[in-house]
Each structure stands twice: as structure tokens, then as C-alpha cells.
């Protein structure tokens, strides 16, 4: 058994070098100023009105998108789970397949679809329907988030759903529960690990995205991800950028705590 443990050696080395140390680097940068002196000033930058607003907006948009994803994904996962297709992999692949079309291109395609003279509006005006004017608004960003992250909500819920023993559901029906009661008392509680995992897998990337807001928000809408990206790529103040990243990590740690609490066995993994 000893020798088996050694197999984790390379990974241990790798994770220390490329996961732990880099995170410590962020801590170092986040807690020092340009001269290397210790400071909380970078963290405090989050309290400036602009940054607070960017964070608030990012929180709001990502929460809304997460909620929409959940509401859309749950019935979808249930339908997929009930389809009784033994080629589960095929269903999963339908959701993974779009990833082979580059993420940026997919998002950019929404621009073409949503623009004033875009595809959707052309179709709408053909039928003399009112125009859809959501490009460069927060709604477009939400759409982009939902579109990009929906699979990350569907897959964990689906994976938990298919693992539920059919007889557990039968037992509930057998004991007198109707469809609604069976759903709320049995199915929903049993899929909590999947839901939690789905929520974090949508919420975290949505909270921190800068690409989607860039491409679909017309650069009018600044999210916290944009602020951090600009600190690194344009403002060139890595200390402030790291400080803001540290603030973001609070939310990420919260998500991990949630997962640790509700999904102990890692049932709700997406894949």
C-alpha cells in the first residue's frame, strides 16, 4: 500500500508548485505595495465606489444567471434522466460538443444574433414583431452567462438524478406521496449535492468573467472581472489586482465550503 501512495507524489509536487505557490504569490502581491511593504490598502481598494459597484453588479448578474440556469437546468436534467437512454455519454456530449466551437466565437456569435440589425431582429421585423434591444445591456450579459454556463448546471444535477435508485422514488409513491410530494420531499433533497455543485460551477465563473461582459456588454458595463483584468493587463498595478483577486477568493472559498458541506462524497461532479 505504501508504494501506491507514492503514485500521488508527482501530483503532490505539481499541486504545490502550480496551485499552492501561485496562490501564495497572489497573497504576497495582494498584501504588499509597490515597494514590498505590508499593507491592506490593496484589499481596501474594493471599497471605492466604482469597485464596489463593479463587484455589486457582478454579484447581481451572476446570481440572476445562476438562478436562471438552475430553473432551466433542473427540468432539463429531469427530462434527460427520464429519457432512459442507455447512451448517457451521448446526452452529456450534446452539452460538451459546443465547447469544440471556441468559447469566444460562440459568445461573439451572440453579438451577431442580438445586434440591432442582427439575425434575431431581422426575423422579428420580418414578422412585424417588436425589436429586441438587449445588446450592450446587462440582459445580454446575463444571456451570455446562462448560455455559457448552463451545461455546468445541467450535468451535475443530471449525474445525481440518474444515480437515484428508482425504487426510492417508487417507495415514496408506495407510501402515499403524490408526484408533487415525491418531488419536494425526496427527489429535490436527494439532488442537493448536484444543485450545490452546479450553483458553484455557474456562480464562480459568472462572477469573475470579463470576456462575456466585454463582448456582449459593449464595454459599457464593468464587472469586477473586468476591473481585475485591467489592473493586470492595462493599469499594470499587479498589487491592486492581486488585492481585488483576494477579495474575490472569499466568494470562492465560500463556494468550496458549501460543497464540502453538502457534497461530501463528490457525487455532484459535473463529469
Amino acid at each position, binding site marked *: 500500500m505504501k508504494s501506491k501512495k507514492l503514485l500521488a507524489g508527482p501530483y503532490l509536487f505539481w499541486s504545490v508548485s502550480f496551485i499552492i505557490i501561485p496562490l501564495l504569490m497572489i497573497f504576497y502581491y495582494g498584501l504588499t505595495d509597490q515597494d514590498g511593504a505590508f499593507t491592506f490598502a490593496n484589499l481596501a481598494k474594493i471599497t471605492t465606489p466604482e469597485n464596489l459597484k463593479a463587484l455589486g453588479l457582478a454579484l447581481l448578474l451572476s446570481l440572476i444567471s445562476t438562478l436562471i440556469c438552475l430553473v432551466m437546468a433542473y427540468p432539463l436534467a429531469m427530462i434527460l434522466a427520464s429519457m432512459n437512454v442507455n447512451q448517457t455519454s451521448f446526452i452529456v456530449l450534446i452539452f460538451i460538443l459546443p465547447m469544440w466551437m471556441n468559447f469566444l466565437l460562440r459568445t461573439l456569435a451572440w453579438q451577431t444574433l442580438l445586434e440591432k440589425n442582427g439575425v434575431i431582429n431581422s426575423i422579428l421585423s420580418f414578422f412585424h414583431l417588436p425589436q429586441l434591444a438587449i445588446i450592450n445591456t446587462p440582459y445580454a450579459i446575463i444571456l451570455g452567462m446562462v448560455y455559457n454556463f448552463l451545461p455546468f448546471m445541467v450535468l451535475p444535477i443530471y449525474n445525481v438524478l440518474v444515480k437515484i435508485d428508482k425504487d426510492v422514488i*417508487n*417507495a415514496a409513491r*408506495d407510501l402515499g*406521496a403524490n408526484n408533487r410530494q415525491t418531488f419536494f420531499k425526496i427527489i429535490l433533497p436527494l439532488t442537493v449535492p448536484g444543485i450545490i455543485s452546479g450553483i458553484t460551477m455557474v456562480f464562480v465563473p459568472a462572477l469573475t468573467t470579463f470576456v462575456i461582459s466585454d463582448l456582449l456588454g459593449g464595454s459599457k458595463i464593468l464587472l469586477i472581472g473586468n476591473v481585475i483584468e485591467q489592473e493586470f493587463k492595462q493599469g499594470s498595478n499587479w498589487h491592486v489586482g492581486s488585492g481585488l483577486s483576494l477579495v474575490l477568493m472569499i466568494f470562492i472559498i465560500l463556494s468550496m465550503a458549501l460543497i464540502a458541506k453538502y457534497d461530501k462524497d463528490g457525487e455532484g461532479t459535473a463529469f
Partner: protein
Amino acid sequence: MANKLIDIVNVSKSYGDNLVLDELNLYIRENEFLTLLGPSGCGKTTLLRILGGFESCDSGHIIFDGKNINNVPPNKRQLNTVFQKYALFSHMSIAENIAFGLKIKGKSKAYINDKIRYALKLVNLDGYENRTPDSLSGGQQQRIAIARAIVNEPKVLLLDEPLGALDLKLRQDMQYELIRLKNELGITFIYVTHDQEEALTMSDTIVVMNQGYIQQIGTPEDIYNEPENAFVADFIGESNILPAVMVEDKLVKILGVNFPCVDVGFGKNKPVDAVIRPEDIDLVKPEEGLLEGVVTHLIFKGVHYEMEVSANNFDWLVHSTDMVPVGTTVGIKVDPFDIQIMKKPESEDEEAVPVEE
């Protein structure tokens, strides 16, 4: 005998091309312990699930207490099921599991608490209220599953191989427990198993099934002593099944030798199957037997010795409390009433003829 409680009339069910139940007819009396016995794939579990309401039949009727319940959903049926793998709700405590059905019926708190205590006592698990299902052993989980079902006071309890996952000792204990429970509750049990010993131990009535057909219905004694065909004979206990010819009433020719027997009405010179249980064969001196053979194998089995005797090109399986060493030449003798004669199936498919009661 008590009234018919459930009447299963001409029920058929198939999955795709696979016919699982074919025009099946069966009734179940009130307060009966009825066992559906058969090899896996014989349709017994499907029948149970149709009764529970988890599957619907393609044709035929399920009559419960005089009413057709074909279209009644499981939650409206007055029966409860104990599932093979227990199907406990892992996100609830033991008490919550047991209380599930009662809460849905809107019973009072006091009533529910009483019932939980009563049910746990009944299954010998007092004090387990706040444990989670994961923390219990298989046998304990099984008993909780039973407790969860019976607190709802169903008229019928359906049990789907409930002891399949338990080890031998526990299984035997639970068999007695189930008999005790049934006597205390005074309700009908419909029990599915592929274990013939379990069936013989607990049942009032055994229904032997194979390939979607009922092979024989009867008391455990009937089934064991008078199997109606080779399948039943082979499936229940060990037996020697021999091709034979019914020479005339009360005389059968087995392996070229005439044996006196007690069966009548098969006609003259008709090919039949003869069943002789291993413990019914007496090994005697060569000159005293109807047949002469040599002992080829000998194994000590605790209660008895198991021997194989080669005679007239057939290996006879013999159980005896007396040991006969390998190589001994012996005579084989069978009492006439220990020979069970069965009609020979005319073709391969005939083996599965539906048996009307």
C-alpha cells in the same frame, strides 16, 4: 378459507419483444402468506411491481377487494412494498423514514410518534429513531424498510426478495421474524424469492413460476412432494428425474425395469417423467433391489451422506444416513408412493404450459 383479496385475471406484460407475463391468472386470499418462486427472469418481480403499481400490465385486470385497480397510482393503493435494496431515504433519519407515509396522510404528531415507537419495537430496533440509514447494517436497514411499510397498516405487504442481500444466519433469523410479524399483524404477505428453502419455510402457498407462466400452485408440501412437472421437481430440492414409460396404471418402466407405483390415469405405454427424491431411495443388498449399481461418489453432508450410484447408465443421487463405501455394489429400491409420475412435455416449449388451477 378466507375470501379472495386480490384477483389477477389474464395479465400479460412484455418489454419490447420480450414476453414477461403471459395471460397469467392467480388469486390471493386474505391473510395468506403467498410466495412467488422462480428463477430470475421468470416474471415474479414484474408481477409484484404490477401489483404495487410501478408497472402497468399490457392486458388483463388486477382486482383488489372487488375493484379494478389497473389505473390506480401506487400512492392510492392499499398495499405497501418492501424493496429489494431497502430504498430507504438516505437524507432522512430513521424516524423520518418511518413517519413518511403517516405525515403524508396528515396523521397527528402524537399518533406518528406512537407508531414509530411501536414499529421499531416490532422489528427489534428500539432507540434507533435518530440514526441515519447509512449507519445501519443491511439487516437493520431491511427491518427499517419493513417498519416503514407496516406503520401505514396496509392490507397487503409486498416483499421483493427482501432477504437477498443478507448472509445465511441473518436470513434464517429474519425468516422467523417475518413469520412472527405476519402473525402479529394479521395481513396478507406477497413474497418474491428465488430461494426455494425460504419459500418452503415461510409460505402458506407457493406459486412456482418460469418464463412468464405459473408452473404449479400449492402448499409447500404439495410442491415438494408432488411436483407437477420436471421444472418444478428440479427447481424445488434435489431430485432424480428419469425418462420412463407408463406401462399401465400403477406400473412404470424406468431404465428398462418395471417399478410399481401409485399413479393412475396416464394411459398405456405412454412416455412420462419419473421423479424420485434422493432421500427416498433405499440402498439394499444387490439381490434385494430392483436395480443393481455401483457407488461412485461419497460425500459427508452433516445430516446425511450424499452418494452417486451408477446403475443402468444413470447416475442416481442418493441421500442416506448410512454410509456405503465407494465401489460397493448395491441394489436400488424405491417405495411405490415415493415415485412421482409427470406428463412428458411434447416439445421444448411445452415445458412452460400454463397451468390452470
